[in-house]
């Protein structure tokens, strides 16, 4: 403790070294390897260590890649919009209506499903939405429908539903935190200055909650794009997303350079879109609360 700035830094670095080294070894190095592979040639079951841009050219000119990438982006965007729109009122309710001693309980209730097996939850949606699933069989036994509803089956709709469910807490929490940070007297000031409830929400609450909404959007969007289980289970493998394509290239087809190139390309696209999204919304992020 009797330590100057230099040894303070040294102590901090020493302490952080083990987790950092672990992340570097198990995440950093593999990611760099992936990047390196994407510039090598595939020699059918072996890899030819020769620099090439072929993989990227192949990826960019592949209509299947375009289709799957666009579908992934579309699904992820749709899931993001649905999830955030559904989550906002809940976060608002939690922050403004629930009394402060009940808040931890509500938050706990909301986060619990998130921590239970993702696989089982996804599978259950399949069971719920399937041709002979819970919804259809339930409605049929109640005599409401004659034939099973098909619009909820093995398609983008059911995938969006499943993913919106899976990422719900991810969307609620950042918005809730942003709402919690809003000084309540600002809202009173808004009303005091003559705005009604709706306009106060529109002119004060929403802009101040935007950092949370933006964070929620990214937190939902990024992992959704990379989701593997939902397309495999719910989509019945017929509507693959980018993660399934990467996996297929890497393992089933065993073209690791091409698979790596797809992965790297997808990551770049997602990163670029995320940055663009942040840039578009930058005016909201400037507000420091």
């Amino acid at each position: 403790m009797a330590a100057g700035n230099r040894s303070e830094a040294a102590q901090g670095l020493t302490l952080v070294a083990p987790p950092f080294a672990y992340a570097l070894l198990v995440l950093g190095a593999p990611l760099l390897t992936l990047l390196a592979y994407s510039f090598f040639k595939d020699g059918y079951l072996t890899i030819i260590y020769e620099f090439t841009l072929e993989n990227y050219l192949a990826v960019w000119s592949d209509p299947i890649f375009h289709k799957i990438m666009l579908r992934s982006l579309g699904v992820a965007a749709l899931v993001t919009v649905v999830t955030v729109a559904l989550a906002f009122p809940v976060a608002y309710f939690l922050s403004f209506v629930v009394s402060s001693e009940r808040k931890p309980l509500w938050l706990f209730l909301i986060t619990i499903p998130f921590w239970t097996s993702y696989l089982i939850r996804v599978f259950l949606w399949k069971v719920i939405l399937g041709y002979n699933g819970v919804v259809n069989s339930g409605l049929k036994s109640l005599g409401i429908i004659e034939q099973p509803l098909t619009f909820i089956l093995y398609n983008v709709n059911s995938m969006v539903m499943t993913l919106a469910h899976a990422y719900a807490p991810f969307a609620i929490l950042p918005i809730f935190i942003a709402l919690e940070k809003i000084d309540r007297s600002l809202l009173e000031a808004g009303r005091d200055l003559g705005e009604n409830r709706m306009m106060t929400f529109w002119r004060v609450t929403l802009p101040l909650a935007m950092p949370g909404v933006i964070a929620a959007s990214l937190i939902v969007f990024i992992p959704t794009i990379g989701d593997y289980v939902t397309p495999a289970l719910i989509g019945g493998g017929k509507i693959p997303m980018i993660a399934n394509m990467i996996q297929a290239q890497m393992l089933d087809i065993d073209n690791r350079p091409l698979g790596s190139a797809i992965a790297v390309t997808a990551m770049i696209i997602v990163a670029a879109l995320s940055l663009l999204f942040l840039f578009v919304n930058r005016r909201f992020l400037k507000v420091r609360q």
Partner: protein
Amino acid sequence: MTSPTSSASARRPDRSAARALIECRDVQKYYADYHALRGIDLTIREGEFFSLLGPSGCGKTTLLRTIAGFEDISSGVVLIDGQDMAGVPANRRPTNMVFQSYAIFPHLTVAENVGFGLRRDPRPAAEKAAAVEEALGMVGLKGYGNRASHALSGGQRQRVALARALILKPKVLLLDEPMSALDRKMREQMQVELIKLQRQVGITFVLVTHDQEEALVMSDRIAVMFEGQIAQLDGPEALYARPASRRVANFIGVMNFLPARILDETENGVMVDAPGLGVVEIPSRNISSADPGDEGPSIGFRPEAVSLLGPNVAAQNRVTGGVIDEVVYYGDMTYYDVRLDGSASFDGKSRPVRIAMRNVFGREVQDVGTRTRVSWSPGSLILFR
């Protein structure tokens, strides 16, 4: 043991002859580019209640932590009891600390907190328990030993922190803003208790505070710090009556300032001309030449160093007429802003001066706009040049 120069001697034991316990010599401290301590020279005597007073960011806490061993110094020397503290870590120094937050261990009971430092003490457990009980008794918490520490009030936490530090019988007790978490009533009560406790144990206390009143109430001597330097080191009375600079004067209490023209150096002091006051001779001990300021020389006096005369009271000192500009009534005191006759004679700017009057029985509060007389004596004026 009384010394004629120390006005504190009447109520505080004079320690000017006591030996030095802490000595700082040209202590410098840099945080990267920030120069936190700029050459601190300081001697704290044994048994003294010493305060480091200054606004936030002046380096007082840094200096305290330097003495405690939590910060090492960039250059200079810190001696405690004649021993160089360079390289001696905090856990090996003969100092203990009462932290601003009190740092009461929330997972331990009151007794476990107080006995924390006795863990390596070779004495048998029963003796240690007795020591803990004695320390608790000293701070007025007898019988509180088994209480959970997180349920204590602010004042109780402070007492536990004191007992925990004093049980180790340190040579120096360091207190980092110990009153800042307490409300006003509690603060005043703890100030008195702390003085008593310090006299009782006879340990040297070094207090860090930004509260000038607290420093004046509690300390034998006070070091006023600004920007990493000691601006003045003096007893409370001297500090209040004869601040070394306009900045110290403003930090400790309120002081009125009037521009002054220096006319002549005399045998006993300086002859000056001040607007409203006329030509006065300032005695040399009331002359402060530490203030560089570009405002030129000025005359300063405390609001209570002059008085308003009632309509039928005969003047005993020099008297200046004036008009009451503002009256602020505080119950026990009334503050008047008075525009002295001729106060604008220097530069056309009229400067009302603040005058504090105690509301004793039979003295009426005067009204705004009333013509009045101000009584003052040259001995209560200070010249900053």
